[in-house]
């Protein structure tokens, strides 16, 4: 019989919530107690089920390609077995680069020509991709207007934003859905579309309470490059709590990982008042 104290530790261990010292002590107990091991085995499956409650997402195909390329490069020459060949074909990924195989002289020129074509193509596409910022912002605006923004429908909006993120991955846009942190205003929601290449973005918000005249909402970009959130400007909402605003950051942004909105004094602050944070999202 496992006592409650050990059950607590087993549950925390399965969740990865024990600190290092407790974990080491618990693992010693695990070695000598088969009943405890069985409990941990079962609770680990519970943890896996919990993990699987996360919304289903699939990685891009590029991850698998990079991964297989890496393991093929690490494997000793001749390690491929007969089992490997058909699966490689099934996977639909390009074959691994053979290590040590002599290359033919035309290959570097072919690669250079291909890269040149890609570069020209990228330049040609650049203007078009930039213009998509406005198009996609308008698209999101339409989505938000058409949605009633009730909690039950926000998952639709999330899916729409996720799809836009997918379709825009190559366009270097960062699309973030910001949720309300205010219990009294659960219907408040916002979307930020950030173009890292152009270093500007569009911010759309719905159902945010208007502020008194001596206050402003302030948008922040969280970039791991900086110790503090970066000021992205202040804004006010209209009488219905809506706004659509273009914005720029006060510092060059390397990675716009997350966005947040705080209430600040008129004109904004140098650092955010985290106690007055009203919206946040990634």
């Amino acid at each position, binding site marked *: 019989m496992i006592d409650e104290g050990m*059950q607590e530790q087993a549950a925390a261990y399965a969740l990865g919530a024990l600190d290092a010292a407790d974990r080491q002590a618990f693992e010693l107990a695990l070695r000598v107690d088969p009943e405890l091991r069985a409990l941990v085995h079962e609770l680990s499956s519970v943890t896996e089920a919990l993990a699987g409650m996360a919304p289903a997402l699939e990685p891009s195909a590029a991850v698998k390609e990079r991964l297989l390329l890496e393991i093929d490069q690490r494997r000793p020459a001749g390690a491929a077995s007969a089992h490997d060949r058909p699966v490689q074909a099934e996977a639909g990924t390009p074959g691994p680069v053979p290590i040590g195989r002599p290359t033919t002289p035309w290959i570097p020129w072919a690669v250079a020509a291909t890269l040149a074509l890609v570069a020209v193509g990228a330049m040609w596409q650049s203007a078009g991709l930039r213009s998509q910022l406005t198009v996609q912002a308008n698209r999101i605006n339409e989505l938000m207007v058409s949605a009633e923004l009730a909690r039950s429908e926000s*998952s639709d909006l999330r899916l729409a934003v996720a799809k836009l993120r997918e379709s825009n991955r190559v366009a270097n846009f960062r699309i973030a859905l910001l949720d309300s942190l205010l219990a009294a205003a659960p219907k408040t929601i916002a979307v930020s579309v950030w173009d890292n290449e152009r270093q500007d973005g569009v911010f759309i918000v719905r159902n945010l309470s208007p502020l008194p005249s001596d206050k402003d909402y302030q948008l922040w970009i969280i970039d791991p490059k900086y110790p*503090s959130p970066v000021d992205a400007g202040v804004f006010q909402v209209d009488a219905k709590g809506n706004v659509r605003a273009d914005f720029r950051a006060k510092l060059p942004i390397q990675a716009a990982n997350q966005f947040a909105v705080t209430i600040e004094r008129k004109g904004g602050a140098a650092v955010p008042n985290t106690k007055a944070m009203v919206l946040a999202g990634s």
Partner: protein
Amino acid sequence: MKSIAYPRAFGRNVAEPNQDAALIARIRGGERAAFVAFYDRYSPLLFSVAARVLGERKEAEDVLQEVMLVIWNKSGDYDPQLGTLSSWAVAVTRNKALDRLRARTRRLRLIEEAAVLAGDSGATSYPSANEIVHGRERAELLRDAMQALPADQRMAIELAFFTGLSQSDIAERLQQPLGTIKARIRRGMLRLREQLGGAL
């Protein structure tokens, strides 16, 4: 409300424990095909977990790649006595994602927690990673069991798993005694084990 389109992978890859045992043995033997099979079966689950923890697709893909290299290079670390292969892979994924999360500034912590809680896994209408890996019927069982948990137990468990907060941290955040948090986690996990029963 519009109907939700399920991902193309919906319902595939229902793994059997025996298949897992055979799979890990082949991966340990350096068989590339076994590794590809593992990737195809579990990458949606592991990627979904990393994305849920990090709230960021690009970083989640980096984590998935790291985890898969662990599976390939260090599958000897897996102890079948302590859980299934997929449970181990989930734990490795969660830990690597949390390592990245902790590397960010402490200022982000509030936002990260808010994002996790806003995720509200029990109330979503879109398909979960469980549906991809285990199929719809089993996923619904898992979802029902999670939703049947008292909210305070579910919150303590989700905070522990997805944010990496220690039990003491959770007690502080929720302004509850540490013993209360430990008891909530224990009761919640044991109740889930009972309710899920053979589905695990």
